[in-house]
Structures are given as structure tokens and as C-alpha cells.
């Protein structure tokens, strides 16, 4: 049924490939991934070709040898929150289950470019979370201790050292003086699109199908078990279905007849005009709801807090941008002279305890991975790793087990709302 793959695919990327292509005016580069027509049946169907969906597919193939997989995406791959985030990567969480999965992700990020043969531009430039109230300072000192016990290297830095690490910062306040910071030197950023593209290419190489421009419009179940999905390109049967659609998780769950403890909220970010290098770490100022880093192109990449209400438009409210910028210019006065180039929004999937959901569902064969909210880019490799195990075995492994849906019934929350305090 599937159309012949006439498009030439890329081979392995290497310095020799660059040299070879340089000799023939770059005429030989092929497509990074194939665009096949869907078959009528797959062992596993993954809905959503964001980072988490693609990583799930990749580790299904790599760790479990399951390659009869389709990743179905309504838009273009990486066009959801994966391509809209501010790319902060860190693993300095307070609760043990969070530290475990986020640090697994960070460790995988450290070697991801080599693993995927695709440069994801992982940049462990260091990450600082500023304490700007006494309360916040006490909170971060507690996190440093928790991280110590978890084996996640972080340390507390005093204002004097912060001044050297971040020269553009105004430590004195007056409203929010900088009292110190939680420093994770292994934290940093990566190129968001490249993470999605690298996984997509590797999945395609394993023979998996990535089907773009194909919205899933219905889920067919029989006897409490999943049978198929209806899509813009027809009905596709599957043994297992993984819903990995972030802000649209409630919509997909609704198709299968269950509800989730999720609300979909807009989160915005903005970038400035490019300027000369002035900031070589990531700085988060959670009390004032702002965080920034400088991209390789020189733009200041700025994010803030979420908007307040359910919104599926990928456009946020203007006053939240204003609040973010207003707050940041006290601590970073030089920002006040910058022109902002672009501003955009994504629809983030918020849970009550601000922790993700990797879980079986009331329908047998359906698994969900969602609830990453404002902070799931950093988790992509670890989440895919844990989700692949859940889907392959039908039961969660140690990384995913604490994040099941049953934690809400049991009141066993993994409360990161106080620890992180803000979007990122």
C-alpha cells in the first residue's frame, strides 16, 4: 500500500561527508527522513511528533527492537511546544522521582549528538536559579541538599560569585535584590528543532513511519481495548497507542472516553535582536517570573510565567509579556535598551502537582505521556526512554512508575510547583 520511497535519504553525517559534498557543490545531500503513506496497521501508533513522541519511538526501536511503529502528527514534526520552547535543560528538581527522570534525560542529552549522528547543539553552559527573597533562598538551599542526596551535582553560590558569573546582572535590587543562586553547572540548552529532527531521522532509518499533516480524529476501542485510530489519511489499526500530544492530551483522551487531570494553558516566549555575547549561562529568576539565555545567534531568549486560563490558540495575552519584561529589567537593566524581534506562544499541559504523567489509562493498550507543562523540553530523552519501556512491556519501569495516573487517586503527588515556582 505504501508509496515507493523515491526520495533519496541522507547517509551518515561525518566530516568526510561534508568534504565529499563540498567537492560536488552539496548536490548529494538526501532527505533526513522519509515521508511515507501510512499502512493500515502498525504494532504501535504514537500520536504526536513532538520531542516526546519521537523519542518514545526511537527508544522503542533502540532498546526494545520494536520498529513496526508510526508516529502520526497533525502538523509538521516539532511544530508544537518542542519547536516553541526556550530550550532550558536542567535536572535540579526537588523530588526524587523528578530528579531521576530529568537527570536520566540530561545524561542522555550529553551524548545525544553522537548517539543520533545529528548535532543537537547541546550546550552545557551552566544554569543559575536566582534567589530573590529569603523564602526562595531557603527553598534553594533545601534543593541543593536534596540534589546532593540524589547524586545530582548542584551548589549554592553567593552574590559575589554570581556577579562574576553574570556581569550584566544588577545584584542590588532594590525591589528584588539577588541573595544568591542555585547553580547546576551541567545544565544548559540545546537546539530544540534539532532534537526533533535528529530523533525523526534516526526513527526513519529504523524503518518507522513518520506521518505528518495527518490529524488523529478518533480512537476506536472494543471491549475496553484499543483497536484503531481514525486519521485524516484513513483508519489505522494498532495493538498499542501512545498519546503524546502535550496541550491536546485532553482532546485525545476524550476520543477514547476518559478524562485527564490536565489543563491546557498558553505559555509565551520572546527573543530580542541579536547582540554581542554578554551572557554565557542560563539565568532563571523565578520570583519575578522571568528567565533568559543568549542564543548562538546573539538573541536574548526570554520566557516567563503561564497565562491563567484554558486556551488552545497558541497566542497568549499581551500583559504577560509585559510582566515578564518589566520584572527582568530590574535585574538585567541592559535589556531595557533592546528591541524585541518575535514573540510566540505554545499550549502547555498543566497538572496540579506540576509533574508529568507517564501512564497506562482506563483503556487497555492506550498509554499517555503528558503533563510536562512548561518544562518538558529538558526531559525529552529521559521521557522517551521511560515511555518506550512502558509501551513495550505494558508496565512502567522504575523511571515512569511514580508518574502514573493513580497518584491522583492516592493523593501521592510529586509536588514540583513549590520547588520550581515558575515556567521554564
Amino acid at each position, binding site marked *: 500500500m505504501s508509496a515507493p520511497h523515491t526520495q533519496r535519504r541522507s547517509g551518515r553525517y561525518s566530516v568526510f561527508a561534508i568534504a565529499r559534498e563540498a567537492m560536488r557543490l552539496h548536490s548529494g545531500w538526501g532527505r533526513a527522513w522519509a515521508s511515507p503513506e501510512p499502512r493500515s496497521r502498525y504494532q504501535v501508533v504514537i500520536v504526536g511528533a513532538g520531542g516526546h513522541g519521537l523519542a518514545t519511538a526511537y527508544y522503542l526501536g533502540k532498546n526494545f527492537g520494536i520498529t513496526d511503529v508510526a508516529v502520526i502528527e497533525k502538523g509538521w514534526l516539532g511544530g508544537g511546544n518542542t519547536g516553541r520552547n526556550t530550550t532550558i535543560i536542567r535536572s535540579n528538581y526537588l523530588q526524587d522521582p523528578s530528579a531521576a527522570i530529568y537527570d536520566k534525560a540530561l545524561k542522555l542529552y550529553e551524548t545525544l549528538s553522537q548517539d543520533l549522528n545529528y548535532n543537537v547543539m547541546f550546550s552545557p553552559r551552566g544554569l543559575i536559579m536566582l534567589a530573590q527573597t529569603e523564602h526562595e533562598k531557603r527553598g534553594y538551599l533545601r534543593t541543593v541538599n536534596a540534589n546532593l542526596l540524589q547524586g545530582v551535582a548542584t551548589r549554592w553560590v553567593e552574590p559575589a560569585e554570581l556577579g562574576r558569573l553574570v556581569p550584566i546582572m544588577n545584584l542590588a535590587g532594590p525591589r528584588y535584590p539577588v541573595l544568591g543562586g542555585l547553580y547546576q553547572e551541567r545544565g544548559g540548552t540545546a537546539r530544540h528543532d534539532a532534537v526533533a529532527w535528529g530523533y525523526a531521522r534516526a526513527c526513519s532509518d529504523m524503518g518507522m513511519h513518520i506521518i505528518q499533516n495527518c490529524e488523529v480524529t478518533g480512537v476506536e476501542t472494543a471491549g*475496553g481495548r484499543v483497536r484503531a485510530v481514525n486519521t485524516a489519511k484513513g483508519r489505522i489499526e494498532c495493538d498499542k497507542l501512545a498519546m503524546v500530544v502535550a496541550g*491536546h492530551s*485532553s*482532546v485525545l483522551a*476524550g476520543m*477514547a*472516553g*476518559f*478524562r*485527564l*487531570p*490536565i*489543563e*491546557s494553558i498558553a505559555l509565551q516566549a520572546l527573543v530580542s535582536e541579536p547582540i554581542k555575547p554578554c551572557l554565557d549561562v542560563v539565568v532563571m529568576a523565578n520570583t519575578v517570573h522571568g528567565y533568559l539565555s543568549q542564543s548562538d545567534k546573539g538573541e536574548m531568549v526570554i520566557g516567563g510565567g503561564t497565562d*491563567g*486560563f*484554558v*486556551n*488552545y*490558540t497558541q497566542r497568549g*495575552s*499581551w*500583559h504577560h509579556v509585559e510582566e515578564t519584561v518589566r520584572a527582568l529589567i530590574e535585574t538585567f537593566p541592559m535589556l531595557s535598551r533592546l528591541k524585541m524581534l518575535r514573540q510566540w506562544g505554545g499550549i502547555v499541559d498543566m497538572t*496540579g502537582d506540576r509533574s508529568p504523567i507517564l*501512564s*497506562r*489509562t*482506563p*483503556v*487497555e*493498550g492506550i498509554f499517555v505521556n503528558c503533563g510536562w507543562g512548561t518544562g518538558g523540553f529538558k526531559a525529552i530523552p529521559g521521557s522517551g526512554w521511560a515511555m518506550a519501556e512502558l509501551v513495550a512491556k*505494558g*508496565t*512502567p519501569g522504575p523511571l515512569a*512508575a511514580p508518574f*502514573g*495516573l*493513580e497518584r*491522583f*487517586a*492516592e493523593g501521592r503527588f510529586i509536588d514540583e510547583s513549590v520547588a520550581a515556582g515558575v515556567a521554564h
Partner: protein
Amino acid sequence: MLTLTCPYCGVAAEETELAPGGEAHLTRHGPGSSDTDFEGYLFARQNPRGVLFERWRHAYGCGKWFLAARDSVTLQVFGAYPAQTTAPPDDLVAAIRAARPGWQPPAAVSAHPDGRTGDDYALNPTPARDTLA
């Protein structure tokens, strides 16, 4: 900017004057209810892509809670009404129906399909309670 007219004081309040309060018309399950009902009340949400009913507080105005109907995709506001009710007023429902043919008000919400009880859905990964897969 989102603007909602407060049904108490009549002020056309801008978003910055209002505090969002989440999904409206939740049935409040308390002591004595089933675990599933209690969980559903506390956590499960419609979170619809389309028409939704939600709670708002006129925080920087009269301070009172009210309810509003809105479309989460177009951000169109259908109307606001006082909070002392368990269902949206009929004329508002009619107005939404006229604007969104085929739309049905959400049925009495239940966290799980098929009317199965909470115990059937124990999703605890420990094998003893492992009723799935």
C-alpha cells in the same frame, strides 16, 4: 485582551482585572463519596477544545465570583452569569447552540467511561492491584 462583563456590577472588566478560577459546574464530592468521584471532582477536567464554562473572580472590582462561557479556540465570549447556579442559563445555552451548531453541553461528567467503578481502574503498578494488562 479578554473582556468579560461582571454580572454583579456590570463592569466590562479586562483580563488584568480578573482572576481565573478554572472549570465551572463541577459537582462537589466530599466525605462519603466514592474514591472515583472524589478524584474526578478534585482533578479530572474537561479542558475542552471549544466551548467551555469557567469560574472567574472580579478581583480588582467587586471581588465576587461569577461564571462565564467562552470558546477556548476562538476566545469568543458567549456571556457571563452569577455563580449561584448549577447549570448555565437556558438563553446562554441557546445562544451557544446558535453560534456552534451541533454543540452539546457537557453531560454529567464522569472520570471514567463505561460506568465502571474506581476499583476496576486501579492503575497502581504494584502487581497486587494490577488489574490492567
